Structure formats: C-alpha cells, structure tokens
C-alpha cells in the first residue's frame, strides 16, 4: 500500500474532514464503523479531533495539510510519497507538520520518499539525494 501527500491538500470540499480521511478506505473490506474509528483516531492524533465534521474550506491551511496527511496514512501504507508536503505552509507550520509525519512513520516503520526545495526539511531525512534538471547528482 502506498500513501500520497501533495503540495496542495486536495481535500474534496463537498465532504467533511472525517469523510475525506475515510475516502482511501472505501475499496477496503472492513465495516463502516471500523473505517470511521480508524479515520477518527488518525485525525485526533493529527490534532484535528475537534474538527472531524468541519468543511475543509472552514479550517486553516496547516489544518488542511494535516488532514491530507491523515488521509495518506489512514490505510497503513508501507511507503509514503510526499511531493513538497510543506510547500504551501509557513516555515513554522511546515516544521510542525514534518515532525508529526516523521514521528508517526518511525513508530510504524513507514518509509518516506519526500521531494522538497526546503533545505531545513531535507535535513530531517535519513538520506538526501539532490536532483537537478531531472538527474540525480
């Protein structure tokens, strides 16, 4: 299983945060209550326990990106692909988000493959590869 985080949150505005996080579980064969429980628990660990039924348009950019992270992690991926996950956030919010992702993934042995232009974020990684004009240097 692979989880994906994009530069922009790409939450579906028609659905609540909880429903957005449940989306990846849709193809899986578990009960609805089990899916809800899992999504709720992940949103709570992202600090969004009070925002479960909120419309994504009514929360801050950092909260939206945390909800997007919860959506990427909800189906217990082996690898998390992250494309500039902090690109649309201020540096402080970005660092807080990265700390959460790293801590969560370390606990569950999830590999992160992350693309960033931010050297501070890159320094958090175990291994850094530099890419220029489509080639790894």
């Amino acid at each position, binding site marked *: 299983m692979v989880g*994906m985080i994009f530069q*922009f949150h*790409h939450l579906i505005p028609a659905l609540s945060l909880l429903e957005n996080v*449940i*989306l990846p579980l849709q193809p899986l064969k578990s009960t609805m209550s089990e*899916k809800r429980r899992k999504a709720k628990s992940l949103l709570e660990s992202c600090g969004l326990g009070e925002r479960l039924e909120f419309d994504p348009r009514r929360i801050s950019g950092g909260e939206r990106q945390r909800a997007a992270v919860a959506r990427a992690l909800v189906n217990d991926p082996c690898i998390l692909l992250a494309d500039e996950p902090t690109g649309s956030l201020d540096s402080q919010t970005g660092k807080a988000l990265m700390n959460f992702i790293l801590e969560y993934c370390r606990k569950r042995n999830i590999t992160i493959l992350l693309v960033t232009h931010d050297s501070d974020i890159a320094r958090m990684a175990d291994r850094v590869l530099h890419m220029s004009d489509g080639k790894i240097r």
Partner: protein
Amino acid sequence: MGRIAFIKIALINIARHRLRSILTISGIAFSVTLFMSFANLSADFRNQVDRIANQYRVDIAVQASDAVTPMSSKIKPELVQKVSESPAIEEAILLSVGKIRLPWNPYTFIIGLSSIEAVSKQVRLLDGDFPKVGKDQVLIGFQTVRQGYRPGQHIKLKDGIILEISGTFSSDIPLLNGAIAMSLETSRRLINRDGQISLMLLRLKHEVQQAEIISQLNSIFPELHATPAAALGEQGLVVKLADRMLVAVFSLGLIIGFLLITNTLVMSIFERTREFGILFAVGWSRLAVAKLVILESLALSLSGLLLGLGLSWSILVSLSYMDAENMGWWISPTLDPAMVLVSTVLILAITLLSALYPSILATRVPTAETLRYE
C-alpha cells in the same frame, strides 16, 4: 466509505449545479408526466369501455369495421338481423352509443340499450323507475342529478325533443355516471341513426366457439368487425392511433432524457477532473469512480421519475374533478401500476445507458496531470 457517504458525494455534486440539475430533472419529469397522463387516460377509458361490455358476460363484441370509435360505429338493421339469426348465438344485446348536447353538458354520453333488463344490468337505480318502452324517458346518472334534475322533470333539447326523466342511477363505471341511459328507440331518434345501432354484444351458446364464430363473422360480413368482448376497449382506429402516439411520445421523451442526463454528467465530469484525480490517487478503482457517476445519473433520473409520477397523478386528479364539474363523466384519478412499472424500468434503462459514456470519461482522467496545480 459507506454507501451513505457515496450517495452524499453524488447528491452534493448534483446540488453544486442546482440550475442545471433542476433543468435535467424537469426535462425527465416532463417526459414522464406526458407519458403517464396520456397512458393512464387511455388505459382508463379502455378499461371503462371493456367494463360496459363485460357487465353482460358476453363473448363477442361487433362494431362496424370502418368505425373510428364505438361512438361512430353504425351497423345497419339488416346486418343486425342476419347476425342475430346465427344458430350459435344465444342472445344479442344491442347498444347505441353517442353524445348529445344537453343544457348542462355539450358532450353528454348517451347509451341506448335493447331491453330494460340490459339497462338494469348496467346501472343501479337510485330513484324513480326504469324508462318505459315507447316513451321518451331516460335514466340519468347521479352526476347529472347534481345539476338539479330529478325524476319526473323534463329535459328540453334544441331540436324540440322533450325527454322525461324516469329515474336516476349510479354505476361502478365512472363513464356512465354522467351519462343518460334510455331505450334503443329513443337513443336512435336522438342521434339520428335511422335504425342503425353502434354495437352488438353476443352471448354464445357454447363459449368455446368464440374464436371460430369471430372468424366466421369477420369473413361473412366484411362491413363488421367482431372481437372478443373483453378486448372491446382496444378496438377502434382512434385507440390504435392513440397507442402509436403514446409509443412515439414516450420514445421521444426517452431520447430527450438520455441527452439531458448525458449532457449534465459530461459537463460535470469536465468540471471535476481534479476530484476524480484525487479519488484515483487515494486508491479508488476505475469501477468505484464509474459507480459514483452512475449513482449521480440515477439520482437525477429517479428524482425526475418521482416528480413526473407526482405531477401526472396531480393532473389526473385535477382532470377528474374538472371533468366531474364540466364534462359530466369521470376520469379515475389513479396511476396504472403496470404503466408505472414500464416507465420506471425504461427510465432506469435509459439512465444506465446515458451514464455509460460519462462514466468511461471519468475513469480516463489523468491523475498526475489533475493534481499538479492547485
């Protein structure tokens, strides 16, 4: 994600473009209303005509072969005589039906019957007595009683004929309740038939001979058209024409519904490519996305279907009241379950067909491309 959330996405997408969805639903509802109103009026009329004939437990109905409706059928007296003399026939009931202009209703349905026994089988006497032979007496349906006419009163027609009301009646057949019933002779005079009648209802000595006798009558008397009595309502050129028009109207409605749903879904998919991209990115299969599109088309068409059924029922109820007040006879304000089933099945089939192309379109959304930018 459960079914409820699945339906919620579909409904929210429909609500996003309220005007477009309302127009699509209205288009489907209009087609359904047109079909259901027309089909039910037609079925109701046939059913009532069938019941008029079947009150007598007859086997064969005979009308003129060139008749557009039973009202325009004219069977000459010599043909009536010849048919009645057939040894296979136990009893022949003669009917003269038509319409006349009465002071309260320009389209009053009149029914002339060959005997008082025949009249008594059609209607229940409420007040007064059955018409006496040789007198211009009539029985009036209870709808007409509402206009203030009572037994013993006279109705003066424009051409100077004065009819005496012998009694009032009610019938289980709504068509008759605003009609007037009388002897065959009186009805012939009223509708200038010169001895001609409209219909012959034949009871056979042996019911099993029905098909054989019908075939014989049709070959010996080309001027006549014999059919099983139970199918009398389906005879007549007007009914056949109405059937063809019904098929044409509904086919056109289905084509319009197909185009409306397809157009709405295709536009919606072009506007929501990112959303489909997100669904693919979080692990949705092509089948799940296609299901979502089909669900949206079902929500549109079922809304249209329900609205159309409600509207057609309202139209039938309004017509039945309007008819009772103005026309003098009733239309049953009911939707034929068979018609409801037919239109539901056809609407569902056309919905699935119209969702086919849009759902394929949705499954071909390029995921990476749609998620590259905000």
